[in-house]
């Protein structure tokens, strides 16, 4: 009772790290969600999905998208129930402060792992393919310097820049797809069901872990101007992100074959290395990677922002900014834990295998809790309100 009262007295205005002036629009949530889903994962998703689902890996990505849609619909319901709350505040409102903070900590930990693995993957893609003699810590440092700046400016700035870069990234992917058409062999996608129905579904759940990363948006969905469209915006973002993922996987299989794609380090990068236009647009992969790097950067900035605002909420801080530098140092350190490429992909496989269950459980637990306890927007208790 006391716990519930404590939570109620804090209310929405005291949400830690809250920047009331920050406003995000429908399209920006779509874009941020899509970027969170595909921006780092699509570099190597094919080499995780293809060994499981074979030639049907692209269908697995679509199945993962469908599972992801289920997750964001639940998350959308949750956001609609608590339109002015961050995820930690929602959890506190539903389960009380101690348990709510614990859930908030697990969410912050989830975001931190996404951040660490995502940044490591992006740094590796640049380090292995382009800047071999540059120490990875420098690349990682540059990454985090930009992320710090983005986090300092707030989610509105990240959302606005994402809108600009998303357009460029989509154009780059369309160009890449068009240029790849002459070198692909569509027959390599056969047999349609690949290794069979069970592996296909298994692959779908692996792919769903990428779609499930969209729960990160719950940390800042309260900034959405039109609160009613949260569910639709997130669902559209997941659909767009997973279509990109499925296309990248499908083209990878058509170009390199099942065995080839399991062998290469970054299948999408190999696709970019293969394409060209005549003899005057060659070695253009750096252009693609520069754009993808920007997308990855914005994704990681959004995830970083979600992490620090959640931690600030858990700690009851009024402003998240004092956490930026320490958290960036933590992120840089985490991204350097996997010493080798093999180790990175091992961690990644582990994450992909299990994180989907967290992404499903989080909105389900909160929503069920909210329904059972009758919690609703603004901290009002539905049952109490009805009783009054």
């Amino acid at each position, binding site marked *: 009772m006391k716990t519930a009262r404590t939570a109620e007295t804090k209310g929405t205005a005291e949400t830690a790290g809250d920047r009331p002036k920050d406003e995000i629009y429908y399209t920006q949530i779509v874009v941020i969600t899509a970027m969170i889903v595909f921006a780092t994962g699509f570099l190597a998703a094919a080499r995780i999905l293809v060994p499981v689902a074979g030639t049907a890996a692209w269908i697995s990505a679509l199945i993962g998208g469908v599972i992801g849609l289920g997750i964001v619909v639940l998350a959308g319901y949750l956001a609609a129930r608590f339109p002015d709350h961050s995820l930690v505040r929602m959890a506190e409102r539903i389960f009380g402060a101690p348990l709510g903070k614990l859930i908030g900590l697990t969410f912050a930990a989830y975001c931190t792992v996404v951040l660490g693995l995502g940044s490591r993957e992006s740094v590796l893609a640049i380090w292995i393919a382009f800047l071999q003699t540059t120490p990875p810590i420098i690349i990682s440092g*540059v990454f985090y310097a930009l992320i710090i700046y983005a986090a300092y400016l707030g989610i509105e700035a990240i959302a606005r820049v994402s809108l600009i870069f998303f357009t460029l990234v989509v154009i780059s992917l369309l160009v890449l797809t068009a240029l790849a058409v002459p070198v692909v062999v569509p027959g390599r996608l056969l*047999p349609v069901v690949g290794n*069979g129905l069970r592996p296909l579904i298994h692959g779908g759940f692996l792919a769903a872990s990428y779609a499930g990363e969209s729960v990160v948006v719950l940390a800042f969905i309260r900034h959405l101007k039109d609160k009613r469209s949260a569910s639709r915006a997130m669902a559209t973002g997941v659909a767009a992100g997973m279509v990109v993922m499925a296309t990248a996987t499908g083209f990878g299989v058509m170009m390199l074959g099942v065995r080839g794609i399991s062998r290469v380090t970054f299948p999408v990068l*190999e696709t970019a290395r*293969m394409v060209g236009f005549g003899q005057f647009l060659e070695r253009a992969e750096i252009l693609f990677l520069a754009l993808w790097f920007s997308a990855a950067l914005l994704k990681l900035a959004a995830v970083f922002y979600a992490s620090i605002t959640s931690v600030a909420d858990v700690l009851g801080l009024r402003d998240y900014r004092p956490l930026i530098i320490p958290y960036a140092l933590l992120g840089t350190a985490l991204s350097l834990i996997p010493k080798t490429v093999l180790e990175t992909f091992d961690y990644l496989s582990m994450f992909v295998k299990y994180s989907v269950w967290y992404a499903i459980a989080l909105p389900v637990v909160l929503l069920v809790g909210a329904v059972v306890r009758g919690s609703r927007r603004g901290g009002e208790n539905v049952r109490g309100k009805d009783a009054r």
Partner: protein
Amino acid sequence: MSVARMRVKTKPGAARAGRRWGRTVAMLVCLLAAASVTGCRDAREIESVGFVLGLGVDETADGRIEVWAQVALPSAKPAEGEKQESWTVRSVGDTVWDAVRQLNGRSTKVLFRAHVRALVFGERFARGGVARALDALARDREFRYKSWVFVTSDPVGDVLGAQTEQSSSAALFLDDVMRNTARSLTAPRSRFLDLLTSIEQPGDQPLLARVRLVESEDGGGQPEGGARMAEAGGGRGAEGKQEVGPKELRIEGSAALCGDKMVGWLDAEETAMALMVCNRLAAYSLVMPMPGDEAGTMGFEMIRSHADTLFPKGVHTGDAAGQVMDVVIRITGTVDIREVLSSEQLMSMRSIERLEANISQHLEARVKRLVEAAQNRLGCDIMGIGECVRRKVPARVWEDDVAPTWHEQFGAILIVPDVHFEVGKRGMTMQSPRPVD
């Protein structure tokens, strides 16, 4: 009172100055950090980079690996006729990578392999297995998967050292031919990527373009070729003798590989048929006797063809895999008449039908010859029949039951070609111009 007022005025000013300093320091730190990541610290000037255009790999008689690199030598003035435009260097090592790293030691420039246009394997190396070169090249972040791959029975050094008047180096010549004359080429457009993907598929074995040195037909087309070849190849000819006289490069026919090992050559006609069966033949021209007029001839150009691999009795796998299956290769297409040297001018429907039947029979006989070569002489599936089976059966069945024994099964399959071609355009004239008798 006045001191207190001064303090009140000074504090915000000091804070502003502090912030300004802070920003300046932050900016300087960012600039310094940016300088460290641009690569300027150990930048390479373009003059110190050796752009490798062609790579050659062969095996010596004692089993060591020879590697050649053809490096572009760009000059400031385009009209410097006397200056060599490319330089070919050779090294020997225990493995491909060992030989490549020794190449680096022999060059004054940093060898940069991102512009390799042609990769030429010697026959001895190809017969021993090209996988020995694939690993080192596939790992190389500079090497491109779109480089053309060739096999030659001539000394690799001589092939790379051959000079043509059309291009500044042999590698560029090979690249130009593969890019620009695809429709008239009777060789597969084999890229490194195709080689990588097909050696792993027993049902879709690689065909690599063959490049040869042939006597120049015009006699004086390449005056410097012999001397340059001798320099590049260490003065060795096909039998270790000094080659004299102009020679030119010709891309024709192909080398058939079983897995990564070369098992034999296909001539131009067999290669064209193999490409037609795999739906990779862009165009093909042929000359044949005129039906009903043995003295006359006709020239055709195949402008379209499509092959379907059919399994009339279904695809048997598992226990029935030993029984294999019957395969019908149905090929349909269109030919355009390009030349008629005969009194028969094909002005009736019946003569056209007879011509179409004749062309179909002609091509069917050649496909049969290819099937015989693939099943008996080479013993590997260069026609992609296994790939068609792979697409029809579950992936696990293919991987576990069929693929491991596909080479043996392929030899026992009954393959029946069924070719139907029709005559399309006859050109801008209906009949041959001829003088009045």
